[in-house]
């Protein structure tokens, strides 16, 4: 596929400034080409990673030996209530209905959705908690399957976000900045380390939903931002055919398709020769990937080789394409085949009212599949070098929104929320960080969003301070100007 292309210097006049500057030649090279009057080789630009073979990324290798080779990023869009799931507070159960102490609530700003309330009564968790495993972790009865694997999980109770609304918080969590436009963590990983497989995208996104939800997933959280567009997450659709138009239409054989591809490839290279725009190379690579995916995607989605008990492990919804359960199973199959970054989004959770009625079904839809994914990765030896992270974009308030009544809800709470991780070199069976007796303030080891991303990159062998991309006159990075690796959760 790689071809050595001779480019006529006079063509360069038609290039956009950015295309020139972001390709592997700089102004000096252009000047030299003009002065020497000769052609210049763009063969190197044609495969940014190296001489041949799959793209190994900008870094080709980590700054230090990696503990994790792959990441599963599970996101609960809408914000799970930590009070009702993983942050066990007996004091809140005891004081159910009482006003939250002013010393706890403090004078910090709260969301405009509940700041008109005159009373902020504590609301106990929706279900009883019990202890699980050797580590004795307290987990709500809403999440019994996740509870049962507590010994494999690393809980962080002290992560917090400065953002108060869903999309900014979600975008901050995934890109390190609250406004859209920066590359997502997965895109950075893809940019830095490329791919570990030949026939599937290296960065896959799957969305799912169980109940009607007020907020949706945002593409900004798997966008390539200012990185070249081939680093963007590839979205698998829910439904029987996760990738549209990947199968050949009736009457077209694979050989014919190949012949067509070869012609398109030639035309594209010709176009590239004319314009020198590196985006064309992205496009060529994507055509090639699509061609290979004609074989590899059906192989991923064909579940006939899965034993019944494995399917059962993911729960009854696994039989229904597009559900979180099915996506978890597909995730395992993608991870097995060397996909580096899988981003799962389950939309729901944003229960400002009726939380007692609406939170349990959302928990039910993710509890068993999430646990099954971890168990399945573990028994196949993949959890050892696959990092699984599970979180919302923030938490929910310990006080009731709308007062204590059957239709009560919980408002957004960025001051602290709970996430868990598994595998990939994290220390299993521990809980990091502490919140006060009301799950309202962090009292020990606060974790910033940047710290989480720095740690994720660290486990992949990448120093977050050294992974940069020069754009608009400065070097950008996933962790912006922050980020400390959380040594306490690393095995």
């Amino acid at each position, binding site marked *: 596929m790689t071809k050595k292309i001779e480019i006529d210097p006079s063509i360069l006049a038609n290039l956009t400034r950015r295309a020139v500057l972001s390709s592997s030649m700089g102004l000096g090279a252009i000047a030299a080409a003009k002065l020497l009057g000769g052609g210049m080789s763009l063969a190197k630009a044609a495969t940014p990673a190296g*001489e*041949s*073979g*799959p793209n*190994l990324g900008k*870094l*080709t*290798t*980590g*700054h*230090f*030996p*990696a*503990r994790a*080779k792959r990441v599963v990023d599970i996101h609960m869009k809408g914000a799970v209530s930590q009070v009702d799931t993983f942050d066990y507070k007996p004091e809140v159960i005891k004081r159910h209905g009482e006003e939250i102490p002013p010393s706890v609530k403090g004078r910090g700003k709260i969301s405009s959705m509940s700041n008109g309330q005159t009373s902020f009564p504590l609301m106990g968790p929706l279900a009883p908690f019990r202890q699980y495993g050797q580590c004795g972790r307290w987990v709500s009865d809403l999440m019994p399957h996740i509870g049962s694997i507590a010994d494999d999980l690393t809980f962080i109770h002290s992560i917090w976000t400065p953002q108060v609304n869903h999309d900014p918080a979600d975008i901050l969590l995934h890109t390190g900045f609250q406004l859209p436009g920066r590359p997502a963590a997965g895109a950075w990983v893809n940019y830095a380390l490329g*791919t*570990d*497989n*030949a*026939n599937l995208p290296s960065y896959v996104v799957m969305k799912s939903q*169980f*109940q*009607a939800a007020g907020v949706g997933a945002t593409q900004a959280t798997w966008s390539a931002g200012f990185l070249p567009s081939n680093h963007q997450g590839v979205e698998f659709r829910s439904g029987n055919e996760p990738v549209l138009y990947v199968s050949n239409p009736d009457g077209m054989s694979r050989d014919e398709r190949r012949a067509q591809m070869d012609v398109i490839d030639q035309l594209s290279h010709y176009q590239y020769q004319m314009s020198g725009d590196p985006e064309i190379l992205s496009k060529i690579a994507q055509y090639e990937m699509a061609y290979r995916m004609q*074989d590899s995607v059906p*192989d991923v989605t064909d579940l006939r080789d899965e*034993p*019944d*008990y*494995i399917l*059962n*492990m993911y*729960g*009854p*919804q696994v039989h229904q394409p597009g559900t979180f359960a099915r996506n978890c199973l597909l995730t395992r199959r993608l991870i*097995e085949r*060397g996909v580096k970054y899988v981003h799962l989004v389950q939309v729901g959770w944003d229960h400002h009212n*009726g939380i007692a*009625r*609406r939170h*349990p*079904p959302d928990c*039910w*839809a993710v509890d*068993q599949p999430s646990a099954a994914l971890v*168990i399945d990765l*573990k*028994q*196949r*030896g993949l959890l*050892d*070098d696959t990092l699984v992270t599970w979180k919302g974009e923030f938490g929910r308030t310990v006080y009731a929104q709308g007062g204590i009544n059957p239709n009560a809800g919980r408002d957004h709470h960025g001051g602290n929320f709970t996430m868990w991780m598994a595998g990939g*070199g994290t220390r299993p069976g521990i809980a990091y960080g502490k919140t006060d007796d009301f799950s309202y303030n962090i009292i*020990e*080891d606060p974790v910033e969003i940047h710290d989480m991303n720095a740690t994720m990159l*660290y486990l992949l*062998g990448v120093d977050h301070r050294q992974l940069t991309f020069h754009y608009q006159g400065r070097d950008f990075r996933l962790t912006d100007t922050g980020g*400390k690796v959380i*040594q306490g959760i*690393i*095995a």
Partner: protein
Amino acid sequence: MQLIWFFGRFHVLILHLPLGILTLAVALEILVRFRPFRFLESAVAPAWIAGAISALATVALGLMHATEDSFEDMDAVEAHGWAGVTLAAVTCLIAILRTRLHPPPYPPPHAGEGREGAPRRAGPETAGARLYKAVQPAFAPGAALDRGYDKLWGVPVAAVLCLMFLTGHLGGNLTHGDTYLLQYAPGPVRVLAGLPADAGPRPKPTDLASADIYLDIVQPALERRCSGCHNNSKKSGGLSMATYETLMKGGSKGAVMTPGNPAASDLFHRVSLAPTSSDFMPKDGKTPLNKSEIAAISWWISQGAPKSATVGSLTLTAEASAAIQAVIGATGGAGEEEAAAAGSDEAPLPQVAEADRAAVAKVVAESFIVRKVAKGSNLVDVDYVSTDPVTPEMINDLASFGPNILRLNLRHAGVTDAQVSTIAGFSNLRRLRLEENAITDAAAAYIAGLKNLTYLNLTNTKVTDAGLDRLATLPKLSRIYVWGTTITAAAVDKVKAACKDVTVYAGLTAKDVPVQTKIMTPAN
């Protein structure tokens, strides 16, 4: 006092004036004795005078600076002070001797003219004019002083040169520490100076027992993490970690070391606090010591904090051994500070020569992904990424750089027992993925030769109880995955009992998974 200290600190700035001016004066003094440079004669005296003034100013500021009590070695300050004072005195002397006074012009020109041309009466002689008149003959050109200086000029000028070097050197030692100047000097120069001939980097310790606990482990760690602020010039909190002696001396609040008792040693206490604590070191978000470094320092203190002792000669605990090993690996291996932390459950990476590029390119063309395990290491990670089965030739191609392969992934690659016999020669292999291949106990027998293996994935293979038995005794193995094989629970339990360091992951079976069919109803 504060004000005096404030001005005193300008000493280190102003001192460069006499250094420059006096060098110029000495040069002029010599040059004017050669005919082509005679014309510079009139510049000599002003140069000395300027030198003298700047030297006096420097001395004054220096005396103010010396009133600060932050100096560790007052004797050195005093020596520097005396040298400086002597230098200033000699310079003043030369300035005086070199100043030639001409007789006062009499009557002074224009003395009789007022502003409007009206005649002005000369006033009474001032005291200054009388003094000038009195001393002028002694300083007149060609007077005894002038002639004497002309004969003996070499002595005071040489003295100025020597004193300048001496003062400057003593002062420099105060600022930068007395090993600063010759730190990178060639061996013979160091010997002349009475220093040990080779103070270059210590050779990297090759094994645990022969590593020196202070020189190879603790000192480099302190150097990396602490000496940015605690050195002879900066001395935050009065503490310098430049040498063993200054470390033991402690800071302005007293000793930081209690040999034999890490808990009572402020040094250990501060670095082992929670990073959020206000007493935590290092401050201001600087990279803290890692777990291994802290453990090594703790153990060193518990052993009496010797200035030099091989690890082998002390009482080693398992924890200390692992920590020291990790520190050696980190500083020796990839040259990356955090390399050891990133692979802490594994021993330091072995050093190998770089794999032949042509051989790697050939393998890449055969659908392998070959990636170095970290920057600076020649070891590689290899993944097979085609859906076609591997051929024996491909495995042979891998063997051409077999010792470079640290991790090998041959999942679902149609690997045969015979091919595994080739893989068994990859001596540095630590992680091996062979899941979903039709390999049998024969392959397990070959794998038993991979002594560095820590991770082995045999899920969905045809390996049986007998194969597992052979593998469980691999010396470094910690994880073995056998889900989807016919290996029995009894065999797994047997390994569990016999090999405490090995975890066998057998996974779930159909009877472990209860079937649920009820789908919860969404609430809205």
